[in-house]
């Protein structure tokens, strides 16, 4: 998937520029305003030397010759004049100060707002991507896109847009003045332009590639940190710190190498401008001196042209710097757009059905499913669950039990067949109403940082504290929660790492029940819980789920034997189906499993 994203990048190219600019569009007025301010500043800055010139020309020239006697009256009026100009100069300084600060703030705020919007759009999209996407992309990399990559766009908006326009204006101005001043000399100087263009384009190409690599390496490092910090305990327990460090060092060195490459391209490109500058000057001197000899121009022209040339290279240098920011922003934006262009979760028909509640009938009709092409995980699976029934799935690990549950909640779309709930194909039911009415307790428990309450109600403020306590009592979690120092307000750290595995499972169980689903799906919900608690939970569940459909997966047959129906899976197929007694009398897989457990227990 990641590799695929990178291939995708190629097709972006210029569209990325346009897309990035589109984010700036709503702020056009602000950009125009900022440019106007800049123009104003330029005018004032041009006026400042005039002021200084005035001081000298109007008031001080007479004092050029030492000891010239000038009467005190004139002295006084000169002093007043000088002070006046000093004050005007001061006023211009204040004006520039205020204007440039205002301009900087306007642009920064705009830039930050755009980033704000991009981040929102990105996260909005990201969170709606299918589970499959998260399976294939390391979390650290995704985090990098929301945080670092968006941050890298900042300068694009705060400096590039305005400065590029400014540089282009300045450049045009200089070119026009040069041409009007002396056409022939101008043309001679402009012979360096093709070289600039060629250099710049080559540079752009190379630097784009390097920038991409850098972004790529940064996110690899982040992914590495994210994963290994999460699993540091395993690294330590297996005493492989050294080996893991070597791997990290390698990633780190890769990034440094890319940075060094970038540095070299830069150090080759940047002075190139300077060399071309000198070349232009040399051309000027060579041909200029000839022309002076011929008498076609004066030395003054050479002097002025030499100034123009250095002025000419200023905006070019400026543009080159901007170009680099653009490249870096491009590389970051490609990665961002890569996510935005991912297909959002399983397409929903616009006329999908909203359902307030389910009766609870579930039917699989000849369902075929695979995660990866041609590796069928479910093969022609058909079964039916009537409203209110309690159905259990058993079978060897990896048989496809969890997969079936994932399909009911539509985390994946099936390749062949149909899944119906209340006789409606789940593809026609809106995802929200489908998942809202199904309570699924996942095999892998996850707790968020926050407190016990917030982990049970999640972000639903309308679930009351009483409901939380009630459902915790059902699953016997209240027992240990009430012993915690701050009871239900006890702080929970990420992953719930300060709870025992069973305690985490109980909290997650309470969370599932508090939402009062019409269909309850439990995947190994009590695997890490002691027998005593398990029995209590089962009794509570029996009462609670009366009349509601329940699907459970369990390996302990004692948990499933009272189900209305038991489905025995084997390598993606349904092998046996029936209630406990029926299955025992079939003397098949279930019978064998049962006997095993029974014998073990003796």
């Amino acid at each position, binding site marked *: 998937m990641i590799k695929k994203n990178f291939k995708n990048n190629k097709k972006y190219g210029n569209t990325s520029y346009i897309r990035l600019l589109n984010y700036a569009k709503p702020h056009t007025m602000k950009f125009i305003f900022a440019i106007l301010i800049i123009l104003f500043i330029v005018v004032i800055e041009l006026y400042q030397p005039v002021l200084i010139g005035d001081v000298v020309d109007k008031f001080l020239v007479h004092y050029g010759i030492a000891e010239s006697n000038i009467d005190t009256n004139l002295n006084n009026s000169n002093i007043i004049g*000088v002070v006046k100009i000093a004050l005007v100069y001061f006023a211009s300084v204040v004006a520039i100060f205020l204007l440039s600060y205002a301009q900087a703030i306007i642009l920064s705020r705009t830039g930050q707002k755009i980033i704000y919007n991009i981040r929102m759009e990105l996260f909005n999209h990201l969170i709606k991507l299918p589970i499959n996407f998260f399976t294939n992309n390391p979390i650290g990399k995704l985090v990098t896109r929301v945080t670092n990559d968006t941050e890298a766009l900042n300068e694009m908006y705060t400096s590039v847009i305005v400065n590029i326009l400014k540089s282009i204006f300045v450049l045009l101005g200089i070119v026009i003045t040069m041409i009007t001043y002396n056409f022939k000399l101008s043309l001679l100087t402009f012979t360096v332009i093709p070289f600039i263009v060629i250099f710049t384009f080559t540079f752009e190409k190379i630097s784009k590639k390097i920038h991409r690599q850098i972004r790529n390496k940064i996110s690899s490092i982040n992914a590495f940190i994210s994963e290994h910090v999460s699993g540091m305990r395993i690294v330590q327990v*297996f*005493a492989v710190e050294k080996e893991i*460090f070597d791997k990290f060092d390698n990633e780190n060195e890769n990034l440094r190498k890319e940075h060094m490459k970038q540095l070299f391209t830069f150090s080759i490109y940047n002075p190139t401008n300077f060399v071309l500058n000198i070349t232009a000057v040399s051309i000027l001197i060579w041909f200029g001196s000839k022309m002076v000899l011929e008498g076609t121009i004066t030395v003054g022209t050479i002097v002025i042209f030499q100034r123009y040339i250095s002025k000419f290279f200023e905006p070019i240098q400026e543009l080159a710097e901007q170009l680099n920011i653009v490249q870096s922003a491009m590389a970051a934006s490609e990665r961002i757009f890569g996510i935005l262009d991912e297909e959002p979760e399983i397409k929903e028909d616009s006329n999908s059905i909203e359902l307030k509640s389910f009766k609870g009938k579930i039917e699989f009709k000849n369902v075929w499913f695979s995660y990866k092409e041609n590796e069928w995980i479910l093969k022609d699976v058909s079964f039916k669950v009537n409203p209110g029934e309690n159905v259990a799935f058993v079978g060897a690990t990896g048989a496809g039990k969890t997969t079936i549950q994932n399909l009911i909640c539509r985390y994946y779309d099936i390749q062949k067949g149909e899944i119906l709930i209340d006789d409606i194909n789940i593809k026609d039911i809106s995802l929200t109403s489908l998942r809202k009415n199904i309570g699924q307790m996942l095999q892998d428990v*996850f707790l968020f940082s926050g407190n016990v309450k917030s982990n049970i109600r999640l*972000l639903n403020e309308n679930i009351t504290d009483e409901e939380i306590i009630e459902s915790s009592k059902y699953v016997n979690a209240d027992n240990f929660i009430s012993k915690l120092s701050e009871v239900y307000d006890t702080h929970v750290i990420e992953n719930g790492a300060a709870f025992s595995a069973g305690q985490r499972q109980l909290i997650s169980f309470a969370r599932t029940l508090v939402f009062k689903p019409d269909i309850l799906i439990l995947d190994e919900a009590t695997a890490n819980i002691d027998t005593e608690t398990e029995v209590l939970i089962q009794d509570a569940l029996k009462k609670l789920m009366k009349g509601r459909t329940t699907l459970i997966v369990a390996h302990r047959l004692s948990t499933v034997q009272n189900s209305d129906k038991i489905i025995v899976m084997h390598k993606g197929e349904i092998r046996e189906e029936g209630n406990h007694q029926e299955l025992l009398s079939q003397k098949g897989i279930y019978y064998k499993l049962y006997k095993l457990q029974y014998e073990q227990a003796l």
Partner: protein
Amino acid sequence: MNNKIKSKKTTGFMKSNYIRAFLKKYKFNYLLGVISLIVVDIAQTRVPIIVGSVIDQIESKNFHMTLISSVIIKLVSISIAIYIGRIAWRFFIFGTGRSIEKDIRNDMFLHLEKMSSRYFQDNTPGEIMAYMTNDLEAVRMVLGPGILFLIDVLAMGTITLYSMIVQIDPLLTLAGVVPLLLIAVSVRIMGRENRKRFRNKQEAFAELSKFVQEQLTGIKVIKSFVQEEKTIDAFERNVKRTYEKNMHLIKIQSLMHPFMQFISGLALAVAIGYGGYITIKQRITLGDFTAFIQYLSMLVWPMVATGMTINIFASGAASLERVESILNEPVEIKDSENLSNIDTLLGSIEVKNLNYKYPNTENQVLKNINFKIEKGQTLGIIGRTGSGKTTLVTLLLRLFDVDKNTVFINGEDLLNIPLKLLRENIGYVPQDNFLFSDTIKNNIDFGVRKGEMDKIIEAAKDSVVHENIIDFKDGYETVVGERGVVLSGGQKQRISIARALIKNPEILILDDSVSAVDTDTEEKILKHLNEKRKGKTNIIIAHRISTIQNSDKIIVLDDGKIVESGTHKELVHKKGLYHSIYEKQLLEKMLEEQK
């Protein structure tokens, strides 16, 4: 972590001993960088002089084209020198910045590897990620561009100031320079504020990173409870905070440039007024006046550069504090001073009067634990959820530290056994099976890293996962995704068992490690353990009696205490807690029999 930073007194970037050590280590690089920088600067000043003189020649019309070509050759060679010089200083200054960045990042990771589990409970991967990229970048900015600016500012500033003071009326200089002194003062104030705001910004960024990391880890919960919209709202609050902190910082950072311009402008205004006045009073000549004005305008660039340098250094200092807060975190779990001089470890374990509280908690999790097992024996542990089973075994691994003289392995106090030796001799299958996003093969081989395929397959067979693996299209080369997402619960668990078995450790710890596998498979795994682990010590935690009933010794934990211990037979006869669990697990079957 964050609180600690706030309370700490702020110190300068260059005052940090950690940074100084790097500057020392790379001093030749920096020195060469500075030299090439100076060479480039000097060479650059030659260019206008050469051009100026040739123009004078042209003006006199008294020249030959050979002169022109020699001048051009001169120019070209100078420009080549500059070209090389510029490459050199970039390489030496910026490149060194990158090298130090890498060194620091390595140091941080190395240090993190020594941190205890407690540390990782308080510091999440999302935050750490932000520290190791975002903050490090700010530090790197100082070590590259920051140092460059600093040298530039110092060099240009001193040269200009020096010539001003020496060549022109000292009084005037003073009048011009006094406003410049304003900078020194405001720099200090702004620098401090700047740093504070930058720290807040970095904190907000780390929070954002932490939030996104956590939510994406729990994405399946979000989806299954349809919490997307609300999570987006919560995200927006985070983004808003970063926006605000950023703007707060920008307000002061983008003040720097205009402010420096303002102060140099102010100096010029004063110079015009006062300088004009004393020129009229004929204390200085007009020439002095214009020269002075020129010098002052030459100071504008160093001033603006000063502003940028301040920004870079203030940010760098704030981030360095954060980086150092990781590096300075004390190592809690390490080899003791009176380390035993042993190089093998046999698996006899004795626990004496062990009491345990998790750090910073009140709750006594283990109370007066006493037991002893000989090498080669199997210990079964059973007990309610939260009774302390996992805690007990993680203490053996020194994921958290116990008191002295409470736990002995091979007769040695646990705390005196070299940490590496200890962990190399224990195979641990944790309750949550964390796998790395690597191939199945490498995951099994994680602790051994020899890549011996036959050993890997043997371990996979012993943990009864081999059949599953060869069913995959890519077999042992299948990449399992982060945390093993593409595997079923039972497959993860058994790969995690294989990962411990392949070490063939003296002590094997299975923490509820067959909870996600079916009875048939469990039976097989236990049988293999029985055969392969002869003469080695095993500790098996389970909720099912069937998993542990053949152990040499079983302890029953309840609320942190050992309430019963003995063999299966003895315990069943005792009619205590064990017996009641046994009854319950058996009862259901009995009921069935009657039906």
